């Protein structure tokens, strides 16, 4: 019998195959830490695909495709399952949006967005495989590992 480390949810969203250690960032990115929905975080689970993975389960809430796409920045390998009555009702693929506003910080310390308190960062997708993002302000292009959440 399979021992459930995280119990199954009746309705909501399961975000599986999050890169190990990135589960908290996923929660922060989705802004669900302050909601009243029950959120379960599992970290460093064994995974056939990536050796280790994190899992986040959000009860009674179905993520929208826009929310899912934001995850591409911290968890491009994640899979998103919408759960209805304990069953997977829908799988939503992650697709990185062509434009990302506000949720990430420019990797260039001399970029104006890292100094002006008002400006909202704006990135354009320069390449999908591998993911490269172009800062609308300082005009530099960054790999995903050079970018952090704001």
């Amino acid at each position, binding site marked *: 019998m399979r021992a459930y480390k995280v119990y199954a949810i009746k309705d909501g969203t399961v975000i599986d195959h999050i890169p190990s250690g990135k589960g908290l960032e996923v929660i922060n990115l989705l802004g669900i830490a302050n909601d009243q929905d029950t959120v379960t975080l599992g970290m460093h689970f064994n995974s056939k695909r990536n050796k280790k993975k994190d899992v986040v389960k959000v009860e009674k809430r179905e993520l929208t495709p826009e929310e899912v796409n934001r995850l591409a920045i911290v968890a491009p390998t994640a899979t998103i399952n919408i759960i209805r009555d304990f069953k997977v009702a829908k799988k939503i693929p992650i697709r990185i949006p062509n434009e990302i506003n506000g949720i990430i910080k*420019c990797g*260039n310390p*001399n*970029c*104006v*967005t890292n*100094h*002006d*308190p*008002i*400006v909202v960062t704006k990135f354009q997708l320069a390449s999908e495989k591998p993911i490269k993002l172009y*800062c*609308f*302000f*300082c*005009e*530099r*292009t960054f790999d995903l590992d050079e970018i952090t959440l704001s």
Partner: protein
Amino acid sequence: MTNINFKNRDVISIRDFSKQEILHILDRAKKFKAKPNPKLLEGKIMASLFFEPSTRTRFSFESAMQRLGGSVITLADAKTSSSAKGESLSDSIRIVEKYCDAIVMRHSLEGAARLAAEVSNNPVLNGGDGANQHPTQTFLDLFSILETQKKLSRLNVALVGDLKYGRTVHSLAYALSLFNCRLYFISPESLKMPGHVIDEIKENKANFSEHTQPERIMPKLDIFYATRIQKERFADLVEYEKVKDVYIINNALLKNVKKNFRILHPLPRVNEINYEVDDTPYAYYFQQASNGLWVREALLALTLGK
């Protein structure tokens, strides 16, 4: 080409301009050079916001505005302005734009002019943002190349010196790649053209090669674009000493050059060009600097709808 409308357009990065638009701006600058200073901008005010020091860019912008009949309000000293009191750039621009019709600015932060353009309803002209862009320099470089070679396409152009930190060479390499020029990047190993610039010009299918010595390439060249090795960019001055005088142009180097060959330099020069070269027909850097006036007149007139 006649349908191009520049009214209220920002001039932030050379990447924002198509080949046709670049040619249109250069054509307008040529007309200003032929018939200088029509009073097109009477009653218009340009705010000159140089948060970072500048001599040529600032003077030529201010002179261009005044020669076209407009006037200039200026930030006398960034140290005494509101930004020194902690005001955000966005707020400063929101205030200044109410007092003027166009904003010219230089700032040490990359993307500062783009941010100003986002905030301001008036056209913003970038006079340099950190190590990023200096588009009006690129326009005057292109103008000078066109003026000396009578064309911009398929020229053999060497960009020489500090290709790593020099923003003028980044923008110029990009612009020349639009015109199918053959580019030669000549620099010490430690100051090579950055990968992101190489990637961009590859996208434009540019033909280029990298070198450490100019001698063998000289007979092929139409344009030799020299740059200063910038001491202020080096954390380790020993490294600066190693490369500072690595390329000095003298008359001996010019022995086998083509007749139409010209030397350009964004100035100021330090040791890169020997003074003896000034008297050769190949020296064009002072005319190049003076072309900044016509190009900036063209940009001010066009963005202000004239």
